[in-house]
Every structure is written in structure tokens, then in C-alpha cells.
């Protein structure tokens, strides 16, 4: 479960973003929409534990993100938060499957080969396991990044414009996969987007302005 209290952030010398309190239960999806410049990315990074907010608190289950020490926060993030980006980025030097193993070791988790291959199967990219990520199609890359976000069975999945680069059929496929996988691990899913195609799918929405 994700919740925030009185979150606000101001970059040096600019006006502060004030965010409404959010709540997202396990297996639920929250769509955060808004025009660009309203602080969507800022909110996402605050939720992800990579940007310390000027004020307020982020709670994942009962853990307050920013009350932890930096090192503990890093590990917590790796183990409990999965991130999906607009443009999928990977470690180029290693293969698709090794990118997933990397997500496990970076989060101080034991290598779980079974979990990795189950995910690859479910996302229908197991035939691309040994490929270099830059040799994969965009759809495959986005599915791989979903796999990476899910590999550690996180409690929270954050997706930043996951569909904006995809065509309609790919968009639909990726969203369905994302939704099902989040439900499968009982994670809260927060999607930050301005993609209007998603508004009809997820009723739970928060608009920033």
C-alpha cells in the first residue's frame, strides 16, 4: 500500500509543487495525469525514493521512505519498488536475462533463476533471453522493462509514460501485462501519463494541475 502526506517540493528558486495526498492499495492502479510541467516526474521520483521532497512523507506499507538512511533507502527501493520508464533503458553490455539478474543482485537479493524465467515466459520474451537489449524490438524492450520492474516482487510499481512511445496494439498489450503482473504480485501500481488512451482503462485517477 502506498500513501503520501502533505507532499511538496520546490526546486531552487522556483515555486513549490504541492501534491495532493495519494492512496493506492495493493493490486490497485492509480493513474496520475496532468499536462507537462505540473510536476508529474517530480512526484514520481519522490514516490520512487530518488528525490527527497522538501516537505511531507511517503509511506510504503508502514515504512516511511525518507526516514531511512541513504543506504537503507537504496536497498529498500531495489527490493520494494519497480520502475518502468518511457524509453526503456538497460545495461547495454549484458543480455536481456542478465539485466534481470542484475536487478536482483543490485537489490541485494539472491539470484532467482526460476522467477526470471517465469517472468520471461509470461511476458512472452523467453526466446529473446540471451539477446542484447538493443537488438530487441521496442515492444520487446518494454516487456523486458516490465519484467525487470517485477523481478523482485515489489510492493509498488511506478510507471512513467509507459505507453507514450507505443502504437495502439502494443499499448494495449503492455498495459494489460502491466496490470496483470502487478496484480499477480499484489503490488500497488502508479502510472504517470498524459496518454489519454489509458483514461478509459483505469477509473482510479488523480489529475495534477
Amino acid at each position, binding site marked *: 500500500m502506498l500513501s503520501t502526506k502533505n507532499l511538496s517540493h520546490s526546486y531552487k528558486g522556483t515555486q513549490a509543487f504541492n501534491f495532493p495526498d495519494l492512496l493506492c492499495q495493493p493490486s490497485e492502479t492509480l493513474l496520475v495525469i496532468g499536462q507537462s510541467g505540473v510536476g508529474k*516526474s517530480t512526484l514520481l521520483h519522490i514516490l*520512487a525514493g*530518488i528525490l527527497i521532497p522538501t516537505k511531507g512523507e511517503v509511506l510504503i506499507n508502514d515504512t516511511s521512505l525518507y526516514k531511512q538512511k541513504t543506504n537503507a533507502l*537504496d*536497498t529498500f527501493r531495489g*527490493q520494494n519498488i519497480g520502475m518502468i520508464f518511457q524509453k526503456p533503458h538497460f545495461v547495454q*553490455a*549484458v543480455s536481456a536475462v542478465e539485466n534481470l539478474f542484475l536487478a536482483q543482485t*543490485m537489490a541485494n537479493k539472491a539470484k532467482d533463476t526460476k522467477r526470471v524465467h517465469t517472468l520471461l515466459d509470461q511476458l512472452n520474451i523467453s526466446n529473446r533471453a540471451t539477446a542484447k537489449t538493443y537488438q530487441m524490438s521496442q515492444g520487446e524492450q518494454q516487456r523486458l522493462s516490465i519484467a525487470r520492474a517485477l523481478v523482485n516482487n515489489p510492493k509498488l510499481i511506478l510507471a512513467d509514460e509507459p505507453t507514450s512511445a507505443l502504437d495502439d496494439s502494443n499499448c494495449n498489450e503492455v498495459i494489460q501485462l502491466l496490470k496483470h503482473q502487478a496484480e499477480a504480485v499484489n503490488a500497488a501500481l502508479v502510472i504517470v501519463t498524459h496518454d489519454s488512451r489509458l483514461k478509459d482503462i483505469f477509473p482510479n485517477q488523480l489529475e495534477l494541475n
Partner: protein
Amino acid sequence: MNLIKLAWRNIIHDPLTLFLNIILLTLGIGLINFILLLNTQLKDKFEKNLADIHMVVGAKGSPLQMILNSMYHIDAPTGNISIQEAKPFLREKHPLIDKSVPLSMGDSHKGYRIIGTDHTILEFYNAEIHAGELWNNLYDVTIGAEVAKALDLKLGSQFKSSHGFTDDVDLEHDHGTLTVVGVLKPTGSVIDQLILVSTESVWAVHDHDHEAHDHEGHEHGDHDHEEHENGHAHNDNEEHDHAHDHEGHDQHEHDHSHDDHEHDHEHDHSDPNHHHYGEIAPRRKVNDLSREHLLSQTEKDITSVLVRFKSKTNFQALNMPRNINENTDLQAASPAYEINRLYDMMGTGTKALQLLALLIAIVSAISIFVSLLNSLKRRKYELSLLRVMGGKPAKLLSLILLEGLILSLLGFFIGMIVSHLCMSAMGDSLYERYNYPFKAWIAHGKEGLLFTGTILLGLTAALLPAIMAYKTDIHSNLSEG
């Protein structure tokens, strides 16, 4: 997927950069190691062979050349000196001289020098007989351990000597077959590379050789023959046209303290086209290897004398070389002084090389630095990703340091292998030049230092990029991406 594996994958992900870095590192480290290999062995050779020789006396010329020739058996002799001239230094019971030994040279066998001398030389190099016996007879040879090994010579093996110091069959002496009667224990000094014979054997071989080379008639030729025929008992080898004998000749040498003609023949060993003596003698005893006997042949020539003083700090002893140089036709030189001079000369060369190698090493460090920095720019997003996935800043720091470390390790090992391979490939030509078996696969003792240096170089080059990775700002990187 641990960090080391990730670092390794990152390195080989960009093969061209890897290639450049490794080439530079290999060049720098390889060159340094090669110089160390060469220098330590050369220095070792020079120092081991000082053998407490405090002075070398020979013909006027370059003192360094004389030292190189007489002590290290590199380079040609400066010339010959007569026993008459050398007598004071060869005398036993000289008040200042502990021991001295005459050397006669000019011949070789398959590149190994044949030295005419007496048994005192063994005391200089602490050499002992390993098998067989010492050279007591004419044409007997006792060989150094290295010679025995390299040429596969055994007791009883026979060979002919070649004129000069190169391995050239055309210059083989036609007469005077030498017989191996003894092999020395390995000493690690230059004596391992020598073929030792009596001074008389050197004279004799040359005498016959001159005969063989010079049937047209030499200015002294007929004269000599006559002398021999007239003055001495005839030998068994009368079938030769010239009908004079070496047996007689040898006897003659032993029996008389003066032979006006013989000494002419010894003057120049390096000139194959000169005097000749009678036909060859069969193997027979040199009855007298004693110093007294040698000194009695005042008109004969030797190449040089090695001298050890009773005390090298004795004032008179210290002044002896200068007195010799100023007051006689001989040249005296102090090995320690000349070798230091040589070091100085070599030092400039090796210093320049070392500087070059160091420069290459620094360039390779810069290359590692730049390529890591470049890859960091390219991997900015990747590094942020690793942070997002839970990687701590310290992990990114170690990752980049590891990349620098792996590069330098690779460079070190490849550089080591390449330099040893080069040494191995150049060994033969170095052997010919320095008359010293350069070993390719030995340690010179400074590997640890070189290793540490290389590691430090890699880490230093990677330090700044690693710190930058440590400070990766995930938020701004991801916002840009």
C-alpha cells in the same frame, strides 16, 4: 551477476577502446619489464664477473674494450703483449699482487671462446672440476658448464677451433684437434662460457694454422722452417711438404727460453694470414704448465693479464695502473672503474628508454581515464538505472574502479608475457653480442613493484570517473533521459 562480471562485460562491450587501452598498457609495461629483464641480467653479469679482479693489463687501446674482452669475453682484444713485458705482473711473489693469470685468445668454437691460460684462472672464478680433469696436456681442453651443455660436448669429444670469435666453419683451423678432458661445475660466471686450454695450445694451434694458410710463403716462413729443421728433433709427421714439425716446435718451446722466430708468429692472432709453423704435433704432454716456464718464454705473446691485489686499498696498488699506463707500453685498467663508466654510458640509453616507457604508461593511464569518462557519459542513464535497482553509490564507485583495475591487470599480464616472449626471441642475438645467456623466463625481482605500479595506475586513472559515478544524480539523469 556480480560487480566483477559486470565490470568485465562493460570493458569488452567496447572492443576498440579495450584494444587501444591494452595496446598502450602492454607497450608501457612490456617495455619497462623488458628493460628490467635486460638490465638486471647485464648488471648481474657484470657484477658476478668482477671476480675480485682489480686490474687488467694488456695492449694499449681502449681500456673499456680490454676489460670487456678480458673479463667478459665480449669484443675483440686490444692487441697482444709479450711475456717479457707482462713478466712483472705474472711473477709469483710480487709484493702487491695476490694472484694473476695470463690470457691468450683469438679462437673460438661455435661461438664459444677458447682461452689459453693456466689453472690460476679457476681461483679467480671459484671454479671446480665437475668431470674429468684440468688441461694438463697440449690440445687438452677443459670446458665451462654452459659450453658443455650448449654444444653437447663430453669427455673425449674432439673439435677444431675456429679463428676469430664468430661461428664460421670457413675459419676453422685445419690443425690442432682439441680434446675435451674436463668439464667445470657451473659457477654462474663467465667461465661457464669458456673453453680453457693451455697457453701453449693456443700458440700451437695458431702455428699450425699459419702453416696451412700460407703455403705461398710468408716473409718469415722459410726462415722459420729452416730453424725448426735445423735446430730440433724431427717429428713423426714428415709427410708434409714443409717437413717441419710441431712436436719439435713444442719441445723447442719448452726447452729453450728464447726462440727468436717463434715469437713472431704469436703477434697477431686476429690476422689469419700470417706466420706458419711446422706440421702438427700429435697429442702430447705439456710438461710444464708452471708460471716459471711461461715466464721463461719472454718473446711469446699473450693477450692480457688479470690481476688481483693483496689489498685493493693499498696505495701502491692503487697507483699501479697509472704507473703502468704512463711508464710502459702496456695498458692497465681497473675493472670497477671501467664498468662504472660503462654503466654511466648505458645508463643514459636505458634512462631514455625507461622515460619513454614511463611516458607510454602515463599515456595509457590517460587513455583509460578518457575512455572511462567517455563510457560514463554514454552510461549515465545505465548508472542511474543501477541506482534505481537498489545499487548503492559505493557500488557504482567500485564498478568503475574495477573496470580500471581489470584493464590494468590485463595490461600487466599481457605486457609481462609479451616482454618475456621478446626476451626469448632476442635471446640468441643477445647471446652472440654479450656472450651471456640471457634468460627469458626468469624473474628480476621487481615484478611486485611493477605490478603495484600498474594497479595504482589503473586505479588512479579510474578514480575521478569512479567518483563521478558515485555522485550520479539519478533524478536529473532520469529526467533528461
